[in-house]
């Protein structure tokens, strides 16, 4: 097992396109790191550089204590699960899993033992003689996993492995991947654009945008203290409301006529500085009319989600969404007075989008 370290890794393509603009990252041994971001943010390129499928323009990648920049994919002691699984269509499931071991010259009975072991763990023993074409999407996914685990690699790499599955299967496989990684104790690097996958799987979450890392942290940290407006709106569903406001004193922001208390706010900001204020739909509470720190919210329509309801409308002239458990708020259009716990008010720089927190 091994830790993975990236030091200022960059990727520039032929035409001068900078896909990855200097990423540093450390994944501890046995850790599960998820790279998440919109498409084109460089996350897949980064993963492929760790795999050795893309060359590194500058910087260092090391696996264990070894810098692998110049080492071919096969020698990096990694295994990868591809988005489209990339199973060998002309080989049986058994041969698909055995192929890598055969290339290493592993003895036949050892190969057999390991393939059967992997098949047992993944519950695909009855499928060993089948061709990939004869398998369902979920089964193919398992075979791809099996191909990765028979190698007993130092690192698992996952490139959006669940995006070709339907929603139900995706949830199920997500749980299995996490269990398997725990059980095997292998370091994992996982790329996805799905924030739910990212939150649930990771013990280290990396949010990327435009070739840069926006934030690295525990999933809960990233959710509670997003480092930028981008992270704030990318993580969380429905996305965080962003409103225009100004600094109105230490720990206080003004939002139109109303003011809000903020616990985590830099002290050195001049009064009157224009900022953006982020409020998560699920953090909004109903308040009594006219109380201090309340905001008027004009509800226009309500979406029923079952357990919760989404109230859509306008706040200070901007679109605003509030989420509330069903039946806790009267589901009708009209004015509501709302408030937010000072711990849950996020303030961002108007220009850079950076969080204006204390540290």
């Amino acid at each position: 097992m091994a830790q993975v370290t990236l030091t200022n890794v960059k990727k520039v393509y032929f035409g001068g396109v900078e896909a990855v603009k200097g990423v540093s990252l450390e994944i501890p041994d046995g850790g599960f790191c998820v790279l998440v971001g919109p498409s084109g943010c460089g996350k897949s390129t980064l993963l492929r550089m760790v795999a050795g499928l893309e060359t590194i323009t500058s910087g260092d990648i090391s696996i264990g204590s070894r810098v692998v920049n110049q080492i071919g994919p096969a020698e990096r002691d990694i295994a990868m699960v591809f988005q489209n699984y990339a199973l060998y269509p002309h080989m049986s499931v058994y041969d698909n899993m055995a192929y890598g071991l055969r290339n290493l010259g592993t003895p036949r009975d050892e190969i057999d033992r390991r393939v059967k072991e992997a098949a047992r763990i993944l519950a695909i023993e009855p499928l060993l003689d089948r061709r990939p074409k004869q398998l369902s999407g979920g089964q193919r996914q398992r075979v791809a996993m099996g191909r990765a685990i028979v190698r007993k690699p130092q690192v698992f790499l996952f490139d959006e492995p669940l995006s070709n599955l339907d929603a139900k299967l995706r949830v199920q496989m997500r749980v299995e991947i996490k269990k398997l990684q725990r059980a095997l104790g292998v370091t994992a690097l996982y790329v996805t654009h799905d924030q739910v996958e990212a939150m649930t799987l990771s013990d280290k979450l990396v949010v990327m945008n435009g070739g840069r890392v926006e934030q690295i942290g525990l999933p809960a940290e990233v959710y509670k203290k997003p480092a930028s407006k981008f992270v704030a709106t990318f993580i969380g569903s429905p996305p965080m409301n962003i409103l225009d406001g100004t600094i109105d004193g230490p720990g206080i922001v003004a939002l139109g006529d109303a003011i809000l208390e903020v616990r985590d706010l830099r002290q050195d900001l001049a009064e009157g500085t224009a900022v953006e204020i982020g409020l998560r739909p699920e953090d909004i509470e109903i308040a009594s009319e006219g109380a201090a720190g309340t905001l008027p919210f004009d509800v226009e329509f309500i979406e029923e989600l079952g357990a919760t309801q989404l109230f859509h409308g306008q706040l200070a002239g901007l679109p605003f969404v509030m989420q509330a458990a069903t039946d806790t708020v009267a589901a009708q259009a009209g004015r509501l007075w709302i408030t937010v716990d000072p711990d849950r008010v996020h303030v961002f720089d108007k220009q850079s989008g950076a969080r204006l927190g204390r540290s």
Partner: protein
Amino acid sequence: MVEDRRLGDAIAYVILTIGVLIVAFPVWLTFVASTWDAATIINGQLPLYPGPKFFENYYRILFIGTSGTTREPVLNMMLNSFVMAMAIALGKIFISVLSAYAIVYYRFPFRMAAFWIIFVTLMLPVEVRIFPTFKVVSDLGMLDTYQGLAVPLIASATGTLLFRQFFMTIPDELLEASRIDGAGPFRFFKDTVIPLSITTIAALFVIQFIYGWNQYLWPLLVTTKDSMQTIVIAIKKMIVTSDALTEWQLAMATAMLAMLPPVLVVVLMQRLFVKGLVETEK
């Protein structure tokens, strides 16, 4: 990929360059021969670079012809080849677009029978039934005519199958939408099917033009008059006579001119050509 590519890439360049040379050498030699005089060639002294007679030889062959063998100006033969190639290409597109439309978009009693009647002709080139076909053409008085050159070669299933395959990929919803918009079979064909098929039509045209231009055995049989010859069969006539009479420089110039139009089509319309080739064969 992180893999040492230098050696592999170098090998690739060497092999591809050798390939290009192998492919190009015979043509280069032909071009060189077409720019020298007969004596240089017959003595076996042909150099590897072009000579001084380029304009003289090409002028002579295009507008006057050889002195011994075919005597027709090659320009006239190129015109024959062009008419034949165009007739085959356009004729095939015309009949196969119509028949494919009928087979795909209509239900009628003899639909499958019609499909199989056409389909069976898929893999049987004209060479197999050459003399009986010749007899039919001759009985119909079509020897030494453009119809006689072109029409029998149009009878094949490739075009129909290509269009059928393409029409099958047009979503049913388009027909349903057209119907709702009040279009009948003719309007749907004209306003929807044909515009969607343009690249397929163009690709088939490229392939069939080359096919038509390059025909050999068939024009050899159905043309008896020199004025109806195509350029491809004329070359053979220029060199069959005993060596001394063969005006090699003119025969080689004719060969260059025979290659020029179809090669230009391939190089200039490479994308359509590749599409046509790959799809007609599926």
